[in-house]
């Protein structure tokens, strides 16, 4: 078998294994830790009967292993159980919200990825001069403020003071794409700012690393122009690290979404998750946790696979 195929297959298998292990952890995290779920749902004043009823209803009297496999097989068939708080089917509730979240993350990615690469290139081109220092100063500042505060800062200045955007991001199926985009503009800007800083810094480091290699010097000593050196020699080797950076930051973005949705009261997965954590609605939390973990593991896997595919030593073995 070609080594690339083998490595990719191994990486795929590893991801599946990780996902499985993550599902165990998520399950164990909610079920086996100290503190009885039924107790924490009903609070200290609950009567013994109601506690017993709830335990029965949640299947808490079954052994944990049985409960885990029931849950896992259900999840694999798209049955995520029902929410404790309102008795609704979780898969159904998540469906619409997941697509809302992906819609938000998608537009944030579309804007932030090219921008980060462009800024990274500018920072490398003007390394240690003022554009580089300005960019790194701004990114340091934006890394130092939590996402939700960036959200409120922009909301305060752009939405409330200047009135450019709505301060909450409501969307529904009746809206046209344009209306939707206008509605999510502010959260998209915030998310872009949040991932931009990390992505830009990592892109800069990745490109600098390639630019300092001996083959770039060889290219310069061939009399190639700056553009030719970058396009022909640096770029082919920088693709893999940059794609890696992008994927890792997209994974980061997926998590950033959780907080931003709460700030802008956006009807997505994050909002749903946080709501149900406070309500201690365990099945919903498990389902959301599993989905977020799956997306995160998937993106990390893509990053690794791109690195494998881009490595000439692996693509063209001896």
């Amino acid at each position, binding site marked *: 078998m070609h080594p690339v195929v083998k490595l990719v297959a191994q990486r795929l298998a590893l991801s599946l294994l990780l996902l499985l292990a993550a599902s165990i952890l998520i399950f164990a995290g909610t079920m086996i830790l100290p503190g009885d779920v039924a107790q924490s749902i009903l609070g200290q004043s609950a009567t013994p009967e109601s506690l017993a009823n709830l335990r029965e209803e949640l299947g808490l009297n079954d052994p944990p292993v049985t409960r885990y496999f029931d849950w896992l097989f259900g999840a694999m068939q798209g049955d995520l159980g029902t929410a404790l708080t309102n008795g609704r089917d979780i898969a159904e509730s998540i469906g619409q919200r997941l697509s809302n979240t992906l819609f938000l993350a998608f537009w944030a990615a579309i804007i932030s990825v090219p921008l980060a690469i462009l800024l990274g290139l500018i920072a490398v081109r003007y390394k240690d001069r003022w554009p580089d220092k300005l960019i790194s100063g701004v990114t340091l500042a934006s890394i130092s403020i939590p996402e939700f505060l960036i959200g409120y800062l922009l909301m305060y200045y752009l939405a409330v003071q200047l009135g450019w955007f709505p301060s909450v991001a409501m969307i529904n199926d009746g809206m046209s794409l344009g209306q939707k985009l206008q509605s999510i503009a502010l959260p998209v800007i915030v998310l872009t700012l949040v991932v931009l800083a990390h992505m830009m810094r990592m892109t800069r480091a990745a490109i600098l690393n390639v630019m300092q*290699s*001996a*083959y770039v*010097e*060889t*290219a*310069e*000593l*061939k*009399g*190639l*122009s700056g553009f*030719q050196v970058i396009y*022909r*020699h640096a770029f*082919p*080797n920088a693709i893999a690290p940059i794609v890696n950076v992008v994927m890792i930051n997209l994974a980061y973005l997926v998590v950033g979404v959780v907080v931003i949705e709460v700030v802008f009261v956006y009807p997505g997965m994050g909002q749903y998750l946080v709501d149900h954590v406070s309500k201690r609605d365990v099945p919903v939390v498990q389902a959301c946790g599993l989905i977020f973990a799956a997306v995160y593991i998937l993106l990390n896997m893509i990053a690794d696979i791109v690195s494998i595919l881009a490595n*000439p*030593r692996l693509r*063209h073995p*001896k």
Partner: protein
Amino acid sequence: MSDTLLKVRDLKIGATVYPPGEKPHDIEIVHGVSFDLAPGKVLGLIGESGAGKSTIGLASMAYGRGGVKITGGEVWVNGRDILKSSVRDIRNLRGAEVTYVSQSAAASFNPAKKIMDQVVEAAVEQKKFSRKEAEERARTLFSKLGLPDPDNIGSRFPHQVSGGQLQRCMTALALCPEPDLVVFDEPTTALDVTTQIDVLMAIKEAIRDTGVAALYITHDLAVVAQVSDDIMVLRMGNMVEYAHTDQIINSPKEEYTQALVSVRSIEHEEKKPTPEPVLSVKNITARYKGLNFDVLKNVTVDLHPGQTLAVVGESGSGKSTLARVITGLLPPSEGQIDFVGRTLSRDLAGRTREDLRELQMIYQMADVAMNPRQTVGTIIGRPLEFYFNIRGAEKRKRIIELLDEIELGEKFMDRYPAELSGGQKQRVCIARSLAAKPKMIICDEVTSALDPLVADGILKLLLDLQKIEDVAYLFITHDLATVRAISDSIAVMYQGKVQRYGSKSEVLSPPFDDYTDLLLSSVPEMKLGWLEEVVAHRKMESAGN
């Protein structure tokens, strides 16, 4: 056009240094160097590290590596001062009139592109040849440089060919655009000695056949003597001596040059084996975890008290693995090691403190062999404390004695490794192993990372200490000159086996086996015409077979 291709006048080069804890500042690293190079001639630039030779070579392409800047002087190529040329003119010069061959071809080839694309790139880009012509030229060069399968090697990726082959591809890359001048920057330094001779001959013939001029930069005078017409000796950014190769080699004027020429002139009388060896390695076979072949195969050697056994071989011969097996870091799969009459445990954990004390080791890279956070005093003092429980004033006295023995003295006691030169660091490592009063020291390529004159000092010191302390050395090296200088007996290793073993005079006298012959005859000698002699001799032999 003038009869001078390259004319350098009063060249000054500066660099920005970033000393830790201080503000970055500029220093001058080349202080006004001048020379001329006529078309078709070869000038050798020779010097130790820090002499500024690579920097001068790159200056002939108006290039400064890293923070290096050309600060003064003139560099005339084909009648124009390139330091005053526009960016566009310099770009047209690079890769067309002047090209470059670097020390590490493996790093200098783009890993993502095929060799042919990279070899012809400059020629096509500078409009010297069409792509088709350039490829044709490249194939001719591949064949002239002795590369296997010259018609197809270009379609491979750099990692798919060996180091020696890649170095020749790099030479093809430099010659492809038909330049007037090629800068060779230590092109054979990273190669094994038996590979070096082939690459060297290939380069020399290519220079002769194409009539190109060359700047040949190296730290090895014997190598540069084979290829250059003139030699310039550099030291700390200054010109020391500049003359015909013949004069530099045979009648050097300056003291520094004389020292370089006479390096490795250490005389050492071979001692006879004793009945009781201090170390006896018997039938050792070993392999690393995860490898499916033996790195050492049935190795048997003896080392006699107060003597030196040189273990010589090229990379991959298993010589360093032998050291790991003897120290117990790599337990052998078969065989036995006897040391001062006892059989040693296979692994480190099973050895007694006495075993460990009597068998010491010195490493190739002295700067990573010492903890950067400990002072010289602590480093040397630790074995005294650890093995003999010597403390306080007595320890201090003993440390000073040891510092005197390695010719450094008391003032070094409170210094940190980072404050020492390469040679001084290695001396401290020697003192640390002597502090344990060992019966035997394993020296693993201890002089390979040092400049020749410094290395020479270390070897002399080791020999002197051997007389005083009566310690035996297992001396691992790839350098035959070192072997000649210090050994009493020699083991030649090749592909994990002991190819030839015996006293120095036996091993170094004919009749030889094929490998030892190849190895011995490949070591560059400090005389003109050596390369041609060897190559002619080999051709005759292969014709005879």
